[in-house]
């Protein structure tokens, strides 16, 4: 018998016949538990394992490399048939247990075998979740859980063709990778906007998507499956809720797993989401234990192997009444994940929502495709996301699990273990930079050495900006900004001047640089800008997101997809938010003109929706107040029906074109100012701009439309049109500057379009034309428009091109049901009726 067992003297000695332990589930947890028990007390139990799969225990996580062709099944077997024999473990493979009879303490298998137990261990793992869409039962729809699934995928891949993987999490992406290596054309359909959203933040998810697309996979995010369509009785394709249809010869469902609790539940063992266990993996029945993915411990269910190992140790300690670890049972696990796709390094651990006192340390190296983010709280790492370079993942994870205080190594932490724990001097970045030789390269993008940077600084460049323009160091991607700042500090000490203002605290670049780099580097999405320009926060802030959204929209007309979550509420809801949370609605009245039909429609809306106020605005149109967000689409539908569109009273966009009566009626009028105003408004409405933009056309120099305090003003005179720019009647009144005089309406329109485009392309976000012109000077504007005789034409052409994408009424789309989520409540919570009884 076993020498290790310690007998409690108070207990009567009994004949120690081995107890009977039955294990349900021949998977990773079930077998490991048996191994742990054998290691502690080999003679203690007579073990019988039931396995639903007709094979020995293998390393399930290596199914991905098997699918990808990097491993064979034999290479991933954990316990061979000999192992079972040598250890006296009886394996009943291919015969699942169907029933647990706790009264009689037996289990009954599918083949009818009845096996008595003293102790029962449930280790049934999880079942893949199948989304309940039509067609889910078609042949060719598979899950990714066991070897049989892999065999089905391999059989499909032999035929080639199209594979659709539903689910862009760890499992789905590993399946997609394998199928793609096996020669299939793969499309991944993912419900959420970012891949692996449970493990990765937006920045890392975006990098991953880019890389997979580069490898030839099609990744559809924000895509909701409606149906799996059949072709000749087999899978033929997948139809999405938005109507798109993707051909498929095989569909892999990898949308998630559910703990396999059915057997336990019908056996009368307490379950919630998983089988409830205590710290010793004991269920509600003291003789029944459970381990692995099927359990729920302290409210948590796990889907990774690391926690299972810990559970198995705690379980074995308990069953053999000893503690090899000296631990007090299972305490729950913090987990880390890695994606097993060769050539793509992704690591994620812990919690990456830092909280109030949480701080982010972000490092981006666009050239190497690296993104690293650590989340700290109280000087301890609580989360980590690494993309592109995961070498330090385990080190970070270790610091995280040990809750180690990292204050001393904080400076160099993000650069990894070697750097942070290197020679003391290295942990101080300034000292490290001082130690570099003069010909060490500082800026890789522009090939600038330390010597050159120092020379430039000694030559008078006393700020980051000055260095950037002086020797180009840090002027491209910005990843060496820290090094340049160190050199400034080392060279000048306190004399360093603060640079021009950066866009916000998330970046070291100013607005102009960001706009320039978006074009130079052809950056086309917010996460891409953040990655390539080394944003220091993971997802920006309320001031840079809307700015970037606008810059991208302006840079890539027709291509860039507007990002609603980066829009201020007014622009998201196409109405002005009021102090009480309701909205005001201002339909466009072209040039201030209206008619009975429009007025009637407005009157009807006011009555129908009980609007508490309707008012003539300072912009020559009517404003309906007090509309609830839920009613907006219906209000717009009513206004649309009378031919009215959004007035953009809420937008950083064209607001109003104010006109006077002009030559049609006025005894002084020199030109048709009203008509011209309407034409201009038709040309310019819908355009997004750095800030709001107002236009006016006056029929004569009496200037009743106040054209000389507008962003663009036209004063008609006998001989033509005087064009004025940069006026503002708001906080700081500024009269316009005279730009030029033109002879015809066409020229006036062309110049208006050109000026707007120049403003759109050059001003900083939230800078109106008045401060913009004050900053760059009227001369700059004139030179940009007139030095080259073709400039006006080119600018105007760019404006008109971008307008081809902007001039569909946002209200009409919403009235037709677009983004109804923005206008509805999730649900309404009402007191249950019985409460009133």
């Amino acid at each position, binding site marked *: 018998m076993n020498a290790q067992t310690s007998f409690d003297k108070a207990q009567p000695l009994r004949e120690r016949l081995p107890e009977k332990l039955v294990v349900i589930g021949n998977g990773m947890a079930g077998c490991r538990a048996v191994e742990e028990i054998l290691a502690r007390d080999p003679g203690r139990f007579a073990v019988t394992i039931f396995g639903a799969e007709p094979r020995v225990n293998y390393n399930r996580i290596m199914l991905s490399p098997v699918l990808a062709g990097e491993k064979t099944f034999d290479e991933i077997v954990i316990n061979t048939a000999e192992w079972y024999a040598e250890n006296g473990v009886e394996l009943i493979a291919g015969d699942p247990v169907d029933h647990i009879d706790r009264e009689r303490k037996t289990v009954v298998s599918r083949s009818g075998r009845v096996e008595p137990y003293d102790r029962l261990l449930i280790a049934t793992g999880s079942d893949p979740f199948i989304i309940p869409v039509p067609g889910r039962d078609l042949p060719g729809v598979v899950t990714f859980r066991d070897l049989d699934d892999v065999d089905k995928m391999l059989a499909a891949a032999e035929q080639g063709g199209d594979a659709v993987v539903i689910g862009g999490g760890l499992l789905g992406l590993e399946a997609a990778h394998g199928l793609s290596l096996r020669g299939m054309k793969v499309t991944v359909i993912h419900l959420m*906007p970012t891949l692996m959203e449970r493990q990765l933040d937006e920045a890392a998810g975006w990098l991953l998507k880019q890389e997979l697309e580069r490898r030839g996979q099609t990744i559809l995010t924000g895509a909701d499956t409606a149906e799996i369509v059949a072709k000749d009785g087999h899978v033929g394709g997948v139809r999405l809720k938005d109507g798109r249809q993707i051909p498929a010869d095989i569909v892999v469902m990898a949308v998630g797993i559910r703990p396999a609790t059915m057997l336990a539940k019908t056996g009368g063992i307490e379950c919630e989401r998983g089988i409830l266990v205590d710290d010793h993996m004991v269920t509600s029945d003291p003789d029944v234990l459970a381990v692995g993915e099927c359990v729920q411990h302290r409210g948590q269910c796990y889907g990774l192997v690391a926690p299972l190992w810990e559970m198995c140790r705690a379980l074995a300690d308990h069953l053999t009444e000893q503690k090899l670890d000296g631990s007090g049972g299972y305490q729950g696990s913090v987990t880390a994940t890695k994606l097993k796709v060769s050539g793509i390094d992704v690591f994620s651990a812990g919690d990456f929502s830092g909280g109030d006192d949480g701080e982010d340390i972000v490092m981006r190296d666009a050239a190497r495709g690296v993104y690293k983010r650590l989340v700290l709280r109280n000087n301890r790492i609580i989360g980590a996301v690494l993309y592109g370079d995961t070498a330090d993942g385990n080190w970070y994870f270790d610091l995280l699990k040990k809750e180690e205080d990292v204050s001393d190594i904080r400076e160099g932490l993000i650069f990894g273990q070697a750097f942070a724990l290197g020679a003391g001097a290295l942990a101080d970045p300034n000292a490290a930079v001082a130690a570099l030789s003069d010909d060490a390269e500082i800026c890789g993008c522009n090939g600038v050495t330390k010597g050159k940077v120092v020379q430039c600084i000694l030559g008078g460049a006393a700020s980051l900006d000055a260095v950037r323009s002086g020797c180009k160091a840090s002027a491209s991607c910005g990843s060496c900004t820290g090094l340049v700042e160190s050199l400034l500090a080392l060279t000048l000490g306190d004399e360093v001047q603060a640079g021009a203002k950066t866009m916000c605290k998330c970046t070291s670049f100013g607005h102009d640089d960001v706009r320039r780099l978006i074009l130079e580097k052809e950056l086309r999405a917010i996460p891409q800008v953040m990655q390539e320009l080394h944003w220091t926060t993971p997802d920006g802030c309320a001031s840079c997101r809307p700015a970037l959204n606008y810059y991208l929209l302006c840079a890539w007309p027709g291509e860039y997809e507007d990002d609603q979550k980066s829009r201020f509420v007014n622009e998201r809801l196409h109405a002005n938010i009021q102090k009480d949370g309701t909205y005001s609605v201002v339909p466009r009245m072209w040039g201030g003109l209206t008619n009975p039909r429009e007025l009637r429609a407005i009157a009807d809306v006011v009555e129908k929706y009980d609007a508490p106020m309707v008012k003539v605005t300072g912009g020559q149109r009517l404003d309906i107040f007090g509309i609830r967000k839920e009613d907006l689409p219906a209000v717009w539908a009513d206004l649309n029906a009378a031919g009215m569109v959004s007035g953009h009273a809420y937008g950083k966009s064209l607001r109003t074109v104010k006109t006077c009566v002009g030559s049609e009626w006025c005894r002084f009028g020199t030109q048709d100012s009203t008509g011209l105003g309407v034409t201009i408004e038709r040309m310019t409405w819908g355009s997004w701009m750095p800030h709001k933009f107002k236009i006016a056309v006056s029929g004569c120099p009496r200037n009743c439309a106040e054209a000389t305090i507008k962003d663009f003003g036209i004063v008609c005179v006998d001989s033509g049109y005087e064009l004025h720019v940069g006026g503002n009647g708001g906080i700081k009144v500024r009269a316009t500057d005279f730009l030029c005089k033109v002879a015809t309406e066409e020229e006036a329109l062309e110049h208006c379009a050109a000026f707007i485009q120049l403003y759109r392309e050059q001003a900083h976000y939230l800078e109106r034309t008045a401060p913009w012109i004050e900053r760059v000077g009227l001369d700059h504007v004139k030179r940009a428009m007139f030095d080259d005789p073709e400039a006006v034409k080119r600018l105007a052409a760019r404006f008109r091109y971008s307008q081809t994408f902007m001039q569909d009424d946002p209200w009409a789309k919403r009235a037709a049901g677009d983004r109804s989520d923005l206008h509805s409540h999730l649900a309404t919570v009402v007191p*249950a009726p019985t409460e009133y009884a």
Partner: protein
Amino acid sequence: MQAKWLDIGPVTQIEPGMAATLPVIGGDEIAVFHTMRGEFYALVNKCPHKQGPLSQGIVHGDSVTCPLHNWKISLRSGEALGDDEGCVPTIPVKVDAGRIYLLREAVVPAKAALQAEAA
């Protein structure tokens, strides 16, 4: 017996970086946030400054910027960040099997038992 947690539907109904509203009859409207990092939070939908609807703000990190006067509110604690002072009640949220749950007793003043009705 009413379950302790109130099921308010699938996680997919709120896109990351956005929020949605949940009116409560006899109580305060709740704003449910889904951060870009994939976390869910719920707050009473009233800014501690002048009751602005926080659900309509821009969400970044785990805070929201109020649409009315740009106060920054922590989604974790409901507290105003920076120099501003004030706090809005938070409602415990849990996500389980792809669904969002709110702690029932925090949704409205004690007594009233609740149920969510799809709008």
